[in-house]
């Protein structure tokens, strides 16, 4: 790489949170441990801690999303920050206002953090490269590149059920090619020491040189799911049928959908995950999604604590200059 990792400050602490790739194992563990501390906040009578009081966080969503935006918003509010939700209709950005102009306008509103979700890979890095130095950027999902907070909440969920990452076999199933979630999960699993990460999917949905991400590729679901401890199903976009990537949802379910029969090939105590929202009968059977091995709703709950942890670590850093004095 030409440049130093721009998401770290001079002390190696998170200044932005753009991608899991390249982070230290300890940083990931710190996030998980901090999230563990926050996980009870939501069950208290007063669901707030004053850590980010006086800070302003802007959610910049260039891409429609309800769940992710809501959990970011809740996380920020539970940390006592002020939250600004800005849904940016992508067509208005193409009408001449450049991303940078928009950025300058938002900076003028004295925000401390931007949570950015954008349809183009690299958008979060682009924002981080160009924001004023006092602003932090959190990647809420950029194109097919990364969705690091989702990746971390999935790690949090796994650790709650399977505390030792070094003893796990994990399968990520589905549209790896277009999935920013899969990329973030794969980086996190590798950094946390999972000895075997498998990517399962049809050849049309597995990217070129996928092994270079640190996975074993399986095109046969039955073979790939055998004896795994964790099954992560990915969401399948309906558009994939039009691009000649898949013939039909029906055939996809039969070959790569998680049916009770296929799940039976995994370890008996395997957990089933999905970043949501689920296409029932496409990615998995309803009986599996709602079954005893599913931890899908826990993922949603955990999303708030993990995002609180990341926001507080990034914004709660002692000021670098103050520290130097």
């Amino acid at each position, binding site marked *: 790489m030409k440049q130093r990792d721009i998401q770290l400050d001079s002390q190696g602490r998170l200044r932005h949170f753009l991608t899991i790739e390249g982070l230290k194992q300890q940083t990931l563990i710190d996030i998980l441990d901090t999230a563990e501390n926050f996980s009870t906040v939501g069950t208290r009578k007063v669901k707030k801690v004053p850590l980010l009081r006086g800070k302003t966080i802007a959610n910049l969503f260039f891409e429609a999303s309800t769940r992710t935006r809501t959990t970011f918003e809740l996380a920020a509010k539970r940390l006592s920050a002020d939250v600004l939700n800005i849904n940016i209709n992508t067509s208005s950005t193409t009408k001449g206002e450049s991303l*940078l102009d928009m950025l300058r306008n938002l900076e003028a509103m004295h925000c401390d953090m931007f949570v950015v979700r954008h349809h183009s890979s690299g958008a979060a890095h682009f924002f981080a490269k160009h924001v004023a130095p006092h602003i932090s950027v959190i990647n809420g999902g950029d194109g097919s590149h990364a969705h690091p907070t989702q990746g971390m909440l999935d790690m949090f969920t796994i650790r709650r059920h399977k505390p030792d990452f070094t003893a796990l076999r994990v399968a990520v199933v589905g549209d790896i090619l277009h999935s920013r979630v899969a990329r973030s999960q794969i980086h996190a699993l590798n950094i946390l020491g999972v000895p075997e990460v498998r990517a399962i999917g049809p050849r049309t949905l597995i990217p070129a040189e996928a092994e270079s991400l640190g996975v074993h590729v399986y095109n046969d679901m039955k073979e790939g799911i055998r004896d795994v401890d964790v099954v992560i199903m990915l969401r399948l976009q309906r558009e994939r049928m039009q691009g000649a990537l898949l013939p039909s949802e029906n055939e996809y379910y039969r070959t790569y959908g998680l049916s009770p029969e296929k799940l039976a090939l995994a370890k008996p105590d395997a957990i089933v995950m999905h970043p949501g929202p689920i296409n029932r009968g496409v990615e998995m059977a309803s009986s599996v999604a709602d079954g005893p091995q599913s931890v899908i709703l826990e993922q949603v709950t955990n999303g708030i604590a993990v995002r609180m942890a990341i926001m507080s670590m990034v914004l709660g850093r002692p000021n670098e200059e103050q520290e130097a004095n």
Partner: protein
Amino acid sequence: MGIHISKGHLIDPTNQVDKITDLFIEDGQVIGLDKAPNNFKTEQLINAEGQYVIPGIIDLQARVREPGQEDKASIASETRAAAAGGITTLCLPPDTQPIIDTPAVIELIHRRNELAASAEIVTLGALTKGLGGTELSEMYELKRAGCVGVSNARAPIPNTLVMRRAMEYAANFEMTLFLTAEDHSLSKNGCAHEGMISTRLGLPSIPEAAETMAVARLLMLVEQTGVRAHFCQLSTAKSVQMINRAQHDGLPVTADVTTHHLYLTEMDIGYFDSNCHVFPPLRSQRDKAGLREGLSNGTLNAICSDHQPHELDAKLAPFCESEPGMSTIDTLLPLALRLVDETNLTLSDIIARLTSHPAQILGLKTGQLGIGSRANICVFDPQQSWMVSHETLNSRGKNSPFIDWEMKGQVSHTLLAGRVVFQR
């Protein structure tokens, strides 16, 4: 006006000159070598001791953004930058606005070029009307107006029958066809080479086959139609092999490569460096090695800049949304020179790929410095180092992927038709 270039090391591949000698210029022509001709009056003496003297560089593809995108650059700004880089001839593809598909546009460009005459511009005419890919352009008219060849630039010709007829028609007037090999259904929406980096960064990708499929299809048609074809800016090792085989089989085929494909790979994208967003995309390490090999064994006949200057805003966007293209006119010569250290090519081989070979491909009489030839000349100091920065780039486009690279070799004088158009 008599110009005497003294004690320079003259490299003129066409005339097999490679020695320290003096050069005498009058009335825009080279009139003497070694010794001054009788009655020669030196009005300007250029001391080229310790420097190389070569034919002016001929760049097979550069966009000057005029007409049509004068906010990015202009004929004046880019020909000045060319002169500062030792380039005396720029070949423009037809995708200007308006498109070069009528003699009027060619006349417009030549007139503007006369007003800003730091380097000469030659043009490629559109192969199809409006580059639309369906109807043939008036190639005869374009040739009469001065086009040195025809091309459809990056615009697709999806219908193979149209492509075949366009080739036949171009061959009819003995025009060289300049081809960009791209299968648009495979490259669609892509912005990076399909490989490790596109997979890591989640970037829509352009597979190797987007180029090789097109090369294969075009070679079959070249074989059938007999048109003289030049493949522009090849980026994959496999294409080089296919061109090599075609040349071996006697097909009238040449090809070029850019400096950036000889030095950079997909890895240089790093974390979304939009200055590395270019078409064809930066490929793998293996492709880079294959291109260098092709340049060494003569399959790739020329090195070009594929210069595409942009205003700063064009690159201020997430990777795929930034405009593709690099500003490379300033670094063409020094990067080409560096190949002497990094490949088995001699300096004379390199100079040939910048001067005499492109001249042959374009059918120009320049690119050599024999007695009586047009005095397009570049004098450069091979030892002079400089850093690439916004300040040192002469092009209006600062979108160079080589910012902060140290270059060795700097032009001291450029002559166009016997006139000093640049002097450091």
